[in-house]
Structures are given as C-alpha cells and as structure tokens.
C-alpha cells in the first residue's frame, strides 16, 4: 500500500486527472443508476396495482351504482371493488386540503362525484373493464393507469437508452484518460520494466503495481462518488417522502430477488456502492491492462 501511495504522490497531476475523471464518471453513473432503479420501482408498483376508477354523475342513484358494481363482479375480472360515496369522497378531500381551508370552504359533498375503485385481477383486464362500464347509465368518467404505465414505460425506456449511451461514453472517456495517464508512468519506467523482464519477471508481475495503483484510484473515486450520492439521497429524503406520499415502498426485482429501493435502506445503499465499485473495477482493469500491454 505504501508503494502505491508513494507512486501516486510522485505524479500528483496525473493522479488528480485520473481521479477526477473516475470520480465524475462514477458519480454520474451512480446518479443515473439510482434514478433508473426508482423509475423501475415505480413502474413495478403501478403495474402490480391494476385499478380502474369509475366516476359517476353527481345525481346518480346508489342503486344504479351498485348495479354496475354487480355487473363488474360477475365478470370475475376484479379482485376487489370499493364504493366511495359522495360523503366519503368529501371526507378524503378534507384530509387532503386540511392545510388549505379556503379550498375546503369552496367545496361541499354535493359537487364531489361518487366512484367505484375496481382492482383488476391483472393489468390486461383494465381496458375490458373500462369499456364495460363506460357506456353504462350515470357514468361520467372512467380512468385507469394505462396512460401512467405508458408514460412510465416511455420515460424508463428513454432514460435507459440515454443512460446506455452516456454510460458507454463515460466509460470510454475514463478508459482513455486512465490509459494515457498510466502510459506516461509506464513510459518513465520503461528501463525498469526491461530489467525486470531480463531477470525473469512474468508479465503479471510487471503489470501488478500498475493494476494495483489504478484499482486503488478506482476505489478512492468510488468511495467519494458514493459518499456524495448517499449524501444527496439523504438530503432529498424529505422531498421524496412528500412526492411518494401514499406509496409505502418501491421494489425492484433482480433475477426474482426483491430489492427495496424506497424508503432508502442500507441494502439499497450497499447495492449502489457495489454496482459503482464493479463499474470502477471494470474501467481500471481495462485501462491498466491496455496501458501495460504496450510495453510487455
């Protein structure tokens, strides 16, 4: 370890350049990774809760609403149907607007519509249920998550494609900078390498100090980038808590293993750290092998 630190100290500018590039690459990659996991978690949350909400005209009789409910039940495509009366809708509205009395004053139970919340057996039934109820008497509006899911899918896909390009670019740039930096150092030690080869050193023996040095830089950069990422996550915790109000948790599945993304937890933080560490290891190993191969 002392040898590595001495070598890094002897070339401060090259070390700083390599460390900066690695740090920014890992920070940006980590940020994109966290964003993508959140979107994936949100998508999964919405997908696993297929729900149609049917709003009725304000003067629709309860018997008509219950008749519609029974028809939907008869299809066996709903797991649960909840009736929200106008009074209950007002109660919910009161809870949402408790900090804004003006909004509450402007509203009465009469103007809020009654509704049915229909949880479908699977997302594919959503259009069928929506189509069934939309033509029935008293139905004012039918909403389901098709648009939300489509939007989330589009957003996730766009971010994933952009992120892939970005990842590739960042990785390429980091490898080039790190390879160039290491090449300078190796060029300075060309005579030393020649002597080691004549003494019978294997390529791996000669390569080891350079690989160790770049991996050390990678570890330092990964730790620093993750410290900033974790700090940012904790800072944004309050904002996200209010943003995700009503969503108890977001989970992603990696090869059927569940990982809770939200609320932040140690497992997710360690997972992010692991991903950035592996990414950093990949960059540093490729760079050090590319740089040393020119002289072996």
């Amino acid at each position: 370890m002392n040898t590595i630190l001495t070598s890094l100290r002897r070339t401060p500018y090259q070390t700083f350049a390599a460390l900066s590039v690695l740090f920014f690459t890992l920070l940006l990659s980590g940020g994109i990774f966290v964003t993508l996991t959140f979107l994936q978690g949100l998508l999964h949350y919405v997908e696993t809760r297929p729900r149609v909400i049917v709003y009725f005209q304000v003067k629709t009789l309860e018997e008509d609403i219950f008749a519609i409910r029974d028809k939907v039940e008869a299809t066996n495509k709903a797991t649960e149907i909840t009736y929200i009366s106008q009074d209950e809708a007002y109660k919910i509205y009161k809870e949402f607007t408790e900090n804004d009395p003006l909004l509450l004053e402007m509203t009465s139970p009469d103007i809020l519509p009654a509704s049915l919340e229909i949880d479908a057996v699977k997302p594919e039934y959503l259009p069928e249920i929506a189509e069934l109820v939309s033509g029935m008497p008293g139905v004012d509006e039918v909403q389901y998550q098709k648009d939300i899911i489509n939007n989330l899918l589009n957003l996730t896909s766009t971010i994933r494609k952009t992120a892939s390009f970005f990842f590739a670019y960042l990785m390429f740039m980091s490898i080039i900078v790190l390879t160039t930096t290491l090449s300078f150092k190796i060029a300075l030690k060309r005579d030393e390498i020649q002597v080691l080869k004549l003494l019978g050193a294997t390529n791996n023996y000669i390569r080891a100090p350079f690989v160790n040095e770049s991996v050390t830089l990678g570890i330092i950069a990964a730790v620093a980038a993750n410290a900033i990422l974790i700090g940012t996550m904790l800072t944004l915790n309050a904002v996200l808590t209010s943003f995700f109000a009503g969503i108890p948790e977001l989970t992603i599945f990696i090869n059927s293993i569940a990982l809770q993304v939200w609320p932040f937890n140690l497992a997710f933080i360690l997972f992010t750290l692991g991903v950035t560490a592996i990414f950093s290891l990949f960059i540093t190993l490729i760079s050090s092998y590319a740089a040393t191969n020119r002289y072996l």
Partner: protein
Amino acid sequence: MISFQNVSVRYPLGNVALEDATFEIEDNEFVYLVGPSGAGKTTILRLILHDLIPTEGVVTIDDIEFSSKKFNKVAELRQKIGVVFQDFKILADDSVFENIAISMEIKGYPENEIRKQVEEALSLTGISNKKMLFPAQLSAGELQRVAIARAIVGNRKIILADEPTGNLDPKTAWDIMNIFKKLGKSKTILFATHNTDIVNSMRRRVLVLKDGRITKDNKKGGYKQ
C-alpha cells in the same frame, strides 16, 4: 548444460553478429568469452537469455530448446539465469536490499528466505553496510557488487556477466573478480571481457571470438592476443 549447435545471427542488412557457433558448456563450468568489441560476446549472452533469436541453429539449456520465436516460457528460462551488465541496470528508486531482493520476489520466494539469501549475498559481495542506501549514493564498484548480488540470489544456476569490469578502475575490477572467484564452482558462469589480464588471472576455459566466429576454444585456460 548450455549447448549451441551451428548458431548464427545475421541482421537484415547483412551484418553478421555470430556465425556458425557450436560449443557446449557443462554445469558449474566457468567460461570466459574473449574478443574485441563487436566479436559476438554479447550476442552469445543475449541468445542464452532469449533476448535475441538466432537466424540459424539451435540453443538449448538442459536439453530444452528455446531458440524459436514460439518459445513461450521465457520468464521461466530467465529465472534460471542471473545477469550482470556492464552498465549495472540497477533500479534507481529501490534500495540496495530491494534491488537484490527483487530477483527472488520475481521467483516467488517467501520473505524470510529472501531476507536470509540477500544478507548472505550482501556479505559475499562486501556491501552489507550499504543495504539501506539507494543507487545514487553508491560508487560504480558498489553498483556492480549490487548487480552481482542480484544475479546470485534465488538459486540461479547460470550467471551471465557482460563486461562486468568494463566501467571500473583496475583495483575495483580485481575486487569484482575476487567475488567471481568466491562463487567457485557452484554456478555456470559465462564471463564476457576483452581484458586479458583478468582472463589470465584465473585458469578457466576461454572461448575466443573474432568477427562473429569462435576462433579458439581453450579448455586449459589462458589467453594471448
């Protein structure tokens, strides 16, 4: 045993570095390679070290032929050989101890064995008191002692010495020769030099080279120009 069978080294522009060299060197034999500059002494050493590939002929050590470009156990071969260069080739950033120890680290020796053998080599070469110094703090003679110590540690069977006294004053050169004498018959030594006094100081086999050819193989030792 080192064996050269009809070995030639010719460069693309027609220069001949070695022409049809055939000889054998037994284990633990001390052989002088004598001749003027450009005679082919260093070429022979480089061939043994697989630092050069012959254009013709076969070079073997212990019946292992390694004169082909396809030979892929170069590191393994070189780990059997210790080299002493005229220009020392000591690692500038490492101490005397580290410079010698590296020869054993390459071969994967454990730390306690490295310490033991390095101390012995330092004692044999008379530089025990310099082990913590760095190359910039040493004289030419001391640097050459470091190079010899590096060549003999780690159970290297063959020592190649390429003009090891070439850059040294006469007194230091004799001191260096005394170290080679102390090595006695424990290793195979090829000692390239053009200094006849040194060759005649020890009655050992002499291979005389001129213009890339072996002109004489004097097994009784001694050399007259």
